[in-house]
């Protein structure tokens, strides 16, 4: 199942906003056919790292380092530049399917547009491909959904459409930023399974950005733990859950609800050695 040749190689990625470092010297690789979970709390830099790999970092971000996709240097290039340069595509699945779909265009119009973005596909072929994509993400009655507006769909269906949109460019890698956070618990599992199935069927790499350790345990092959823009751990998922090396990782695992550490009180996340950014009550010294 695991392929060893890395598809995405990130070396020394640093991202700064107006002098403040959001990501600091991040290095990791993502292999094709593998689910890599990028885990961390809010503000740890996981989302902006994902955005910069997808070529969507905000223009005011100062980015240094090197990101290669199948050997091609892609950092700092917009998706359009990448497409024109003939690089393979990295697509993005967004957190909130409500916000990721244009409310004034029908599902079909949006997918057709995404398919035709390559500038080579005709209208009829694109419509056929769009129906195929809707079918691929297991949307019932794709023919009927095709001409409906996003607000008529449930959250889970919308997220399937978002995934179909992401697949339209035939990407070699998907960056999924909290793809299940905005969904009901029952739907979360379905969407995760869908992403994993698509990854296997299409041989993509999947970079799963999340703060939900349940999602990590269910879906990931590898865990990258981030905090304050730094990578703290890069381990196989089983190793990670068996016993993280970094105290922050241990504290994070212990902080999951419904679990007690065997000895003594729970370690507090704020007391671990990485610098603490969380102010307010109970955080004592920091």
């Amino acid at each position, binding site marked *: 199942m695991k392929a060893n040749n890395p598809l995405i190689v990130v070396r020394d990625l640093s991202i700064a906003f107006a002098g403040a470092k959001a990501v600091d010297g991040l290095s990791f690789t993502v292999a094709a056919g593998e689910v890599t979970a990028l885990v961390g709390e809010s503000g740890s830099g996981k989302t902006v790292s994902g955005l910069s790999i*997808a*070529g*969507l970092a905000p223009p005011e971000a100062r980015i240094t380092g090197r990101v290669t996709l199948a050997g091609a240097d892609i950092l700092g290039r*917009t*998706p*359009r530049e*990448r*497409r*024109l340069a003939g690089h393979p*595509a*990295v*697509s*993005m699945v*967004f*957190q*909130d399917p409500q*916000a*990721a*779909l*244009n*409310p*004034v*265009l029908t599902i079909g119009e*949006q997918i057709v*547009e*995404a398919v035709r*973005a*390559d500038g080579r596909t005709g209208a009829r072929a694109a419509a056929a491909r769009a129906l195929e994509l809707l079918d691929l993400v297991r949307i019932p009655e794709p023919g009927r959904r095709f001409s409906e*507006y996003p*607000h*008529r769909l449930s959250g889970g269906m919308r997220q399937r459409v*978002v995934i179909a*949109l*992401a697949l*339209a*460019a035939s990407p070699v890698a998907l960056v999924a930023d909290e793809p299940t956070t905005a969904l009901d618990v029952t739907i979360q599992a379905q969407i995760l399974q869908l992403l994993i199935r698509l990854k296997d069927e299409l041989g993509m790499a999947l970079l799963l950005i999340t703060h939900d350790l349940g999602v990590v345990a269910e879906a990931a092959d590898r865990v990258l733990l981030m905090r304050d823009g730094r990578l703290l751990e890069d381990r196989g998922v089983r190793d990670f859950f068996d016993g993280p090396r970094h105290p922050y990782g241990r504290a994070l695992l212990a902080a999951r609800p419904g679990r007690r550490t065997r000895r003594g009180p729970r370690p507090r996340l704020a007391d671990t050695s990485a610098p603490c950014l969380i102010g307010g009550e109970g955080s004592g010294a920091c």
Partner: protein
Amino acid sequence: MSARFSFSTPSTLRLGVLCVALLALLAAAAGLLRPGDPMAMVGPRGLWPLTDGAFPLGTDQLGRDVAAQLLFGARVSLAVGVGAAAVATLIGVGLGAVAGYFGGVADHLLSRLCDYVQTLPSFLLSMVLVAVLAPSIGSVMLAIGLTSWPEIARLTRAEVLRIRNADWVLAARTMGLGHGHILLNHVLPNGIAPVVAMIAAVVAHAVLVEAALAFLGLGDPNLVSWGAMIGNARPLLRTLWYLMALPGLAIFATVMAFTLLGNGLSERLDPRGAAR
């Protein structure tokens, strides 16, 4: 966007469409309903409305048919209103969208230009423009359009700013779509509803300004205009007041119709609103 018009559409829109359609119909049929030159002196002077079947709305101090003048005046009002709004929309939406979407220098330039135009008293500016360009229906359109675009530009810019960072715009960028395409298909359609409402308000405003310019004698001298009718009847306010009241009512009805249309459209253009 498919404009599906049915009887389940919001009543404001129905009323607005109805009123505007009625006005347009009356303006178009002016030549059929009251044939001949509306400026010709055809009857007795100062005939009150509803007193003579030949002149249902009476005649003015020179014996001209008031009904004919009102009907032909509707043509001028509607043409100037729509023409001026078209000029203002082209400039305002174009500049506002570019400024909001690209930001930076373009945004700075446009915002200062807006500030500059808005600090000038717009009515005086329109008067000067008409006077310089020589009064004609085209110059009136242009003068009103050139002074009323900043509001549209500001609103468009604000809407584009709100939408340009939406996830679906990011998604469109991941697809590698071009800026022009994203702006036209993903940004503008989502922010256009309030702008459309404002465009209708600009039509209403242009009708008023046209009337005011004509009242001051800056209208097209060869065409009947409601504003000119009111201006001409000014000395007769105490004796033949209907000569001011009737064109006044016509202006009121036109402004009202476009306001209703604008509000109705802004409700209708939002697909989420229409689904309710």
